[in-house]
């Protein structure tokens, strides 16, 4: 595993992306920044530009319009970049599987490294997922 990837996992910078979601997963992700969960003590920082991102948090059921923008955005992310699919919608579109506006699930568009299921997953689950990812890749906190 590349040295660079191991290094960046010490303090991953996170960019959050929604591909057409009900917003619950997005709010639970932002909740991780609030005093009760405070993900910043792990060194994780929410950044405003995708060009600074080490980890992409993606939620939403990939509707047609968002898919185009997402492909463009994924090109811009400096690799290596880890993709975390938050929520059931990002995993497999969930109950929107048969919708005319949600053609394919996220992992058919971009490679996904971690799935955090739930509708929405609680902030504890999101943090646990992020920690599992980092431990699995071989980094430490």
């Amino acid at each position: 595993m590349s040295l660079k990837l191991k290094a960046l996992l010490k303090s991953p910078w996170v960019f959050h992306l929604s591909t057409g979601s009900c917003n619950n997963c997005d709010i639970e992700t932002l909740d991780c920044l609030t005093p009760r969960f405070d993900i910043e003590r792990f060194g994780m920082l929410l950044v405003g530009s995708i060009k600074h991102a080490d980890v992409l948090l993606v939620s939403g059921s990939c509707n047609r319009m968002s898919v185009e923008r997402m492909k463009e955005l994924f090109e811009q992310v400096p690799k290596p970049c880890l993709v975390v699919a938050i929520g059931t919608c990002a995993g497999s579109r969930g109950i929107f599987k048969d919708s005319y506006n949600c053609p394919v699930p996220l992992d058919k568009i971009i490679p996904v490294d971690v799935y955090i299921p739930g509708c929405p997953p609680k902030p504890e689950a999101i943090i646990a997922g992020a920690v599992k990812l980092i431990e699995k890749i071989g980094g430490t906190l």
Partner: protein
Amino acid sequence: MIREEVLLDFTSRFHADILDLEDKSNTRVYVTITPESIVRIGTYLFRNIGARFNIATATDLPPKIEILYHFIVEDINLLISLRVFLDREKPEIESLAKEIEAFNWIEREMSELLGITFTGHPDPRRLLLADNWPEGVCPLRQDYEEWDETVDRTRGI
């Protein structure tokens, strides 16, 4: 105002255009009108009676398309829904958006999801569907079929 007065005023003023009136309950009235009279009746309800426009719902009921315009007279808690029937092959009706701003978006939505033409609409662009959605394919119609061959309807396992 009282409910009976409002209904009496309304029905006597437009008796030529009203085809049917269903007094369903204390708070719900469904009035079937001719499509040609929608602008007259809609603006009367909005401006003169002071009803608020809630939303319009369009349904594909072969061989017709039905549009329901829902207004609410809040002072007496009465929901008046105007029903029009349009021909399914060429559904066309005059737009209310050119008179009243509140109708703008919903007419755009109905036109792309069901294929209804609102003549005189000031801004007849797409509202919800993506640019690569084919023209003329209306998802809320009963005979809508999947046109995209790249879709994946499995559960991903």
